[in-house]
Every structure is written in structure tokens, then in C-alpha cells.
């Protein structure tokens, strides 16, 4: 039993569940719940994005675009066409999955800067579309989004949303951990380590890159739908290029190839702007600075760096390089 608790998969999952349950007791009022909900939504995106960036080693600077497509599909279908929110969310995720699948093969043939540029372009195209199609999206002014309905109940209020997003995050992390601790996850990491060695080991690297790109896009889309219903209002700036950079910064700060790192990064960088409200005009600058400093002083990110430190001090061995 202790062995099971100590292994990073079930032990980490239990720790996250305990954390999600414990946090509400520490939050004095609705405002903090609001921050927690937004942190949780960002964390869901980052868990998927980390599979792509941290594990498979493929960069994306366009994930806010996928998030935006999910958010706007939900918003448009529920507000203008009276769809059930969950059906709209599912269709959004499907559309995003199909789009990601269609663009993945040509895009993921690119490497490094070129891949970054291509995904950046994709994100910007989506952002331009939602800006300009004012008839359906409300353009730069944004649009209202009806509340989420689950089992006939309207989800309303920060506290209810907290539990919903918490459950969503827990499921996302569970699924991500399942993938990582399987031959599929190892294949993803091998693509990062050496693509040519992965190929000669019998791994269809293109297939795995497409797979992880689609998974991360779908998670971003679902989180986007959540975000739209939660805030009740959505604007193109919520899904702009800066949002993509913010997401990548969360993954890099928390830790590449660390599922829990992605969660920690998302939480820290969602809370930070709230602590530095008087700095809000410089928010993008601060994010850029954090990204740079992390790359220089802690290239593996917070959680992997800390876990190595703890391993050295405690003299304990952790099986595998996953964390």
C-alpha cells in the first residue's frame, strides 16, 4: 500500500485530490474562489499542453486559438442557437480535434522555430477570425455566454464552479498520467529524446506527434468552453496570442515533462497577477521575464528541479524520470 502511495501516479493523484479538497477551507471569500477556478481552468489546458511540449518536445504557440474555438463554439451555439451547453462543448471539442488532426501532419513536420512560427500563425488566424466575424462573435466587444447546465441544474457561483473545475482537473491529470505511464507515453518521450532513434525502434513518430497535438487541443477546447460559461462573457483578447504565451510560460515555469508541474505553474501564474494588481500594465512584461529567468536558471522548471533537490537531500530514489 505504501508502495502504491509512493509511486508518482497514484500517490500524486491522491495528493492533488487532497489539495483540491483542502483549498476551500483556506479561501476566505468568493474572490479567492474565482482565482482558484481560473487557475484550475488554466491548469487543465497546461496538463494537455505539457504532454505536447514537455513530454513529446513539440512547441505550440497557438493553443489559445484552440481554447478560443472551444469557448466561442460554446458561446455561439448556446447563446444564439439555444443548444444545450454540454452538447455545444462536445461539438466544440470535436471540431477542434478535427482541425488539430488536419493541420497536425503538415505542421508537425516542422521543427524548432519553424514549428513555433506555424503554430503561432494558426493561433493568430483564429484570433483574427473571432475579431472580425462580429456578426456571430460580437467582434472585439465580445459576447455574453449563458450559464452551464449540468443534469438540469444551472451551474452558478464560484463555489460550485470550484468543485466542477476541480473534478475536471483531476480527471485530466488522471488521463494524462495514464498515458505517460504506458508504452504510448514512453513513445511520446522518445520522440522528444531522439526522433530518429524512436523511428528505428519501430515507433511511428508522426502518428504520436499528431496524437498528442490532438489531445492537447481537445483539452484546451474543453477548458475554453468551461471558461466561457464560467465568466459569462468572452472577448477575443481572452484567446489572443498573449494567452498562448501565458500558457507556455505556465508549462515552462512549472516544469517540462511534469504533469504536476503544469498544475503548479498554472496556479502560480494565475495567482501572481492578482497579487501584483498595481503592475497590471506590465503583466505581459512580467510573464516574459519569468519565462526568460526560468529558461536561464531553471530550464527543467520548478517541480523537476525541486524534486531533484529533494532526492539528493533525502537520498531517496524515485523510479523513472517522470514526475
Amino acid at each position, binding site marked *: 500500500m505504501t508502495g502504491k502511495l509512493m509511486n508518482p501516479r497514484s500517490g500524486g493523484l491522491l495528493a492533488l485530490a487532497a489539495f483540491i479538497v483542502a483549498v476551500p477551507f483556506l479561501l476566505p471569500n468568493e474572490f479567492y474562489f474565482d482565482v482558484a477556478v481560473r487557475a484550475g481552468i488554466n491548469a487543465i489546458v497546461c496538463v494537455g499542453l505539457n504532454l505536447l511540449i514537455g513530454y513529446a518536445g513539440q512547441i505550440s504557440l497557438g493553443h489559445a486559438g484552440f481554447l478560443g474555438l472551444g469557448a466561442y463554439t460554446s458561446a455561439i451555439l448556446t447563446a444564439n442557437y439555444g443548444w444545450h451547453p454540454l452538447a455545444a462543448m462536445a461539438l466544440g471539442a470535436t471540431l477542434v480535434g478535427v482541425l488539430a488532426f488536419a493541420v497536425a501532419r503538415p505542421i508537425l513536420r516542422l521543427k524548432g522555430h519553424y514549428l513555433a512560427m506555424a503554430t503561432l500563425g494558426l493561433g493568430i488566424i483564429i484570433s483574427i477570425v473571432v475579431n472580425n466575424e462580429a456578426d456571430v462573435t460580437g467582434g472585439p466587444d465580445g459576447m455574453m455566454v449563458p450559464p452551464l447546465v449540468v443534469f438540469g441544474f444551472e451551474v452558478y457561483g464560484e463555489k460550485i464552479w470550484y468543485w466542477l473545475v476541480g473534478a475536471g482537473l483531476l480527471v485530466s491529470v488522471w488521463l494524462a498520467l*495514464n498515458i505517460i505511464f504506458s508504452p504510448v507515453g514512453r*513513445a511520446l518521450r522518445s520522440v*522528444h529524446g531522439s526522433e530518429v532513434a524512436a523511428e528505428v525502434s519501430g515507433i511511428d513518430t508522426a502518428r504520436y506527434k499528431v496524437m498528442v497535438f490532438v489531445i492537447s487541443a481537445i483539452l484546451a477546447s474543453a477548458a475554453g468552453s468551461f471558461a466561457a460559461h464560467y465568466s459569462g462573457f468572452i472577448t477575443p483578447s481572452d484567446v489572443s496570442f498573449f494567452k498562448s504565451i501565458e500558457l507556455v510560460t505556465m508549462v515552462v515555469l512549472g516544469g517540462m515533462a511534469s504533469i504536476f508541474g503544469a498544475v503548479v505553474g498554472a496556479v502560480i501564474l494565475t495567482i501572481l497577477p492578482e497579487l501584483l494588481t498595481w503592475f497590471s500594465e506590465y503583466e505581459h512584461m512580467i510573464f516574459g521575464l519569468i519565462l526568460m529567468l526560468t529558461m536561464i536558471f531553471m530550464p527543467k522548471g520548478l517541480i523537476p528541479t525541486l524534486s531533484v533537490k529533494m532526492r539528493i537531500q533525502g537520498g531517496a530514489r524515485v523510479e523513472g524520470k517522470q514526475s
Partner: protein
Amino acid sequence: MSLLRVENLSKEFGGVHAIADLNFTFNVGTIHSIIGPNGAGKTTLFNLISGIYTPTTGRVFLEDRDAHGLAPFELAAMGLSRTFQNLQIFFNMTALENVMVGLHMRLDSRFWPALLRIGGIGKKEQEAREQAAELMRFVGLEAYLDTDADAMPFGALKRLEIARALASEPKIILLDEPAAGLNTTETEEIDELIRKISETGVTVVLVEHDMRLVMGVSDHILVLDNGRKLGEGTATDIQSDPNVIQAYLGAGHLGNGDADD
């Protein structure tokens, strides 16, 4: 049936004939070596056989099946495996995980069972770990099982690549300079390992500059020069082939077995 057959194979890089009109046949269960001076086209030939390059003209046949246009992972499924001259290690993993990647084709890599963790993945992973550990013992790396690959010495990484290449249970394994950069003792251990691999029934193809190793271990040697076949045969044949002596080895080098390129 030949295991590996190459017919009229050519590869051009912008007018340079890296491999020109090459023909040869390798049979099952033997140790073959490909030698030649730097730039003779040995590594290009490995890249053509393993599907990393596509030939300009000509064909490669694996067990008489045309391998033209197949991706490296498809050739791996047909029983071809290889190592790299400039190491291609997964430095983001432990040594054991590196070998487990080599087991990939024999494991369940379907997406949905992995995502939902059904079908006994945990148990199968444990078995895979044991198989990988067994292979690491086979190549003499039992001391490095849980070591991160980026913390291993060069000589051990060379063996790690061999263990990973063996994990896919290949019929034929291409070893690209397994002894390069190793000292005399380590080279002797590699020599021993190559014989051990051959004894398990795997056909070994070796590209190597260390002539003592090549002449000692090979059943059959192919000599390349400027992308063309200069000669082939047993070690004795090669050492007495006037073309080979004149063009590559130079008189007097063979007897004392020094590496020289």
C-alpha cells in the same frame, strides 16, 4: 533466401555519388562487416538500408521483400534494427526506459487502453521492465538499470544502444562503429558482445574502423571506396585482395592490425 540484398543502389547528394551502383547479398546468421576509408559511404549505406534515406536509384530487399519507400519504423517491424555512430540516446529517460522503447513494437501501444488504463497495462509494463533488465544484463549494463541516461559514461551508452536495438528482437542488426571512441579493453568486450549476439541467431552487420576487431570477428567483409564496391569476401580474401590493399589499406598495414583511416 537472402536476408539482405542490395541491387544497383545509388544515392546522390547534389551531384556527389555517396553510393554508386552497389550490389551485394548478406545471408542469415553470419557477421558481416562493411569497411572503407572515411567518406566511402558506409554510414550512407546504413541510412539507406534502414530507411532514413531514400535511394536515388536501386532497391533494398529484406528477406526478398522490396523495402523501397518504407519508413524506418516499418523496416523495424520487418526485423531490421540499428545503432548510430553519433549516439542517439533518449537522454530524457533512464537507461532501462531507453531499452523499453526498443520493446515498443512488442507492447500494447493502443491509445484507448492506455488512456483509460485497462487491459492490464500495469502488469505488462512490469514484465517489460524485467525483459529490458534482462537485455541490459546481456550487454553487461546491469549496474546502470535505474541510472538516468544522461549520467552514464560513453562506453556504457554504446552498449545501451545495442541493448535497445536488440529489444525489438531483430533478424538483422546494423552496428555503426560500436567500438569508436572505446579503449582496448572496451573494444575487446564489444568484440565478445558481437559474437554473443551472433550466437543468438541475429545477423550482424558492422561498420567499423578498428581493423583488429573487423578481421577477427567477421565471416564476410564488404569493402567500399567512393561509394563503390572495392571487394568482398572473408578476412583472408580481403587481406590478399590487391585492389583493397592498394586503394585502401596500404601494404603492410594488415598484418599488425592497426586501425587506420
